């Protein structure tokens, strides 16, 4: 500890250089933290939203290919299926013409609770959803975005069907999902009264399997049931469904991570370079220190401490800035079709720790090489350079 003033004095020796190095490290940590929120957001999404006993049944040809609605009942009646619900994309736009700002689907109100028990929608709200044909259950993220409260009335203009639906918010999904559910019955009747002959089809059937050990068996049974029909199905787990849904982003995420890696490398390089220059400049001084009897360990330690101190302060600041920035981004960002949960911008503690570790790592790496060299240099040789 008594060497602390020495370390500080060394840091102050060339303030401009210290500042430049610190800014570089700060920016690197900031960048890495923000980028790491992307995969972290995806993982968080899976943890929050998916469930390993829930499976999706959809047309083998694609999500936009429909299945007959009656298939929902067949799935529901299958042995081992605890509950099943039909989900149809409504594509409702709120306020902005033709732009879907949060995903919304028509579902069967009476099956929401049994297929999504893990969403923890309060019982009373589920009852209201069944009772009011124009009811809508909305995810927390969307509730917050528009400042909706339970009881509010909103109109969604469908981008798929030529109709508007007047809806009333009756419930909230408390797990920060943006999704909203409307009553299938309501949409069906609206279509009929618009002279379009009811809904009749379903997009995706979500089923909850009662026994986690039988998931694979039941998935096979469902696909078997639709074999050779007009619309053969492909069944998969909820997690697999969402990971292929967001799968196309992976290449993109990889290149971004690659570039970040390069930048981090760049910064390690620079920090090492700067530290070694700083030490080389001080060679005479170090020789004097050694000549008057300071041990190698002290010299090694003070130089290393200098590098670590600089990088951890800069890194800590970087993490703080990242915290503020992601909070801002999180509030500003809305559900985004391109990025999905990648753009959730939630700084998890894990990401924070990774950022701090990066900074410390850079500091250590940049400090070790030059301090090692300085400590090992023979005194006589170093003194030669002084006199």
């Amino acid at each position, binding site marked *: 500890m008594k060497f602390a003033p020495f370390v500080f004095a060394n840091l102050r020796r060339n303030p401009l250089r210290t500042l430049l190095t610190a*800014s570089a490290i700060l920016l690197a940590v900031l960048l890495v933290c923000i980028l790491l929120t992307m995969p972290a957001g995806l993982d968080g999404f899976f943890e929050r939203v998916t469930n390993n006993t829930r499976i999706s049944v959809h047309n083998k040809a694609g999500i936009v290919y429909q299945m007959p609605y009656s298939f929902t009942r067949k799935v529901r009646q299958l042995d081992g299926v605890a509950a099943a619900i039909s989900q149809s994309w409504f594509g409702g736009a709120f306020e902005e013409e033709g732009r879907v700002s949060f995903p919304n689907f028509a579902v069967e109100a009476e099956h929401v609770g049994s297929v999504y028990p893990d969403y923890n929608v309060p019982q009373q709200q589920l009852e209201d959803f069944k009772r009011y044909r124009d009811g809508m259950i909305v995810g927390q993220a969307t509730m917050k975005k528009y400042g909706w409260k339970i009881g509010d009335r909103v109109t969604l203009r469908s981008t798929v069907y030529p109709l508007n639906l007047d809806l009333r918010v009756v419930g909230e999904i408390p797990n920060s999902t943006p999704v909203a559910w409307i009553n299938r019955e309501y949409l069906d009747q609206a279509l009929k009264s618009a002279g379009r002959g009811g809904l009749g089809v379903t997009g995706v059937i979500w089923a909850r399997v009662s026994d986690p050990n039988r998931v694979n068996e039941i998935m096979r049974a469902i696909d078997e049931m639709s074999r050779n029909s007009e619309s053969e199905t492909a069944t998969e787990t909820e997690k697999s469904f969402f990971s*292929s849904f967001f799968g*196309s982003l992976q290449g993109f995420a990889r290149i971004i991570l690659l*570039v970040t890696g390069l930048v981090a490398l760049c910064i390690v390089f620079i920090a090492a370079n700067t530290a070694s*220059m700083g030490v080389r400049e001080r060679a005479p001084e170090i020789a004097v220190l050694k000549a008057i009897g300071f041990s190698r360990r002290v010299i090694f330690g003070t130089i290393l401490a200098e590098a670590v101190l600089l990088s951890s302060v800069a890194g800590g600041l970087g993490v703080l800035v990242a915290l503020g920035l992601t909070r801002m981004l999180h509030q500003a960002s809305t559900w*985004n079709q391109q990025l999905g949960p990648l753009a959730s911008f939630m700084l998890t503690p894990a990401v924070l720790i990774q950022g701090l570790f990066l900074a410390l790592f850079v500091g250590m790496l940049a400090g070790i090489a030059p301090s090692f060299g300085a400590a090992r240099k023979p005194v006589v040789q170093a003194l030669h350079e002084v006199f």
Partner: protein
Amino acid sequence: MALPLSYPLRNIRARFARTLMSIGVVALVVVACTLLLGLISSLKRTVVSTGDPMTLVVLRKGSGNDGSSQVGLDAYRDVRFFDGIARNVKDLPLVSPELVVQPFAYTKEGGRENLLVRGVDAIALEVHSDVHITSGRMFNPSSGEAIVGKGAMGRYRGAQLGEELQIGHRKWRVVGLFESNGSSFESEVWADVRELAADAKRIFPYSALRLRAATPAAIEPLIQRINDDPRHALEAQRETEYYEKQAESANTLYLLVVGIAILAGTGACFGAANTMYAAVQARTAEIGTLRALGFSRGTILRSFQVEAVALAIVGFAVGALLTLGLEKVIALLLGTLAFGSASFTTNVISLRIGVRDLAFSFVLAIVIGFIGGLGPAWRAARMRPIEALRKA
């Protein structure tokens, strides 16, 4: 008296390790910036460059994109004979009825994506003037054939000339490849509209109409006429406008990449400038000697500037070569890059480093060299020779 040019250049050799470090740093900055810029320009090309100002997109009122729009046969028949639509040599109106479906397609790595398949007529190639078949031929109607865009070709299993592509409920034989100057059409597969409608079991045969106006002056009245037609509830807009709106939703992605580029660039510049700065500062004594020998401040400053810029140029050259190599490696490892579009389908972009991206990085490298070298050289040159010499 001027310092000979060989002085700064020989210096590079004399302090090889440190020089190598400076070059390495500049090279890394160049690599990072060029890659990000390449990504940005590739994104922009795909998202923004799609669309022709003379072409109109006709959708059902209220639907945001042709993926969710529906247009009936009767509407097509009526719109087709509106005034102001261009006609081809056979005097047929240039109106292309199109159906968009988004079936699963499997990438070569086995991933599953929603592919945009556009059902079209033969007239589509005349309406979309920037789309041209580069090898093979146009599909024949009702014979299970399809043509594949350049982006989709590299990405999906079976999307090669002569192979079979599993889409929807059946296989389609690929008989042609097309390009469209990098626009988002290249991420699509085109097939016969009637065949596609039958396969997808669509009640409405079409999603949207694309049509070419005869003259620029005809565009506004045509849009008016289509929007006001009470029979079909349609909405017309310029194709450029339509893709601009689609691009809006890709803006977050775009902004994100730009933000990353700015952060990374700034961080790297700090570092590189720092390296340059340190490299010059370490030579204060030498500068003192030069001053004592009678070289003027300006001369010394210029000489150091030459050295720093020379270093930056070498760094840029190394970085540029690395980037071009990396571009190939990325293309090899990742194939094409993809991002979701508004209609839930996949937009395929290929990372291409353009001359502009390299030019920007070049300027950046020079600026880093210049600024990084200027400060310390200025300070050293201003120092009293006696003080500077004391350090020798």
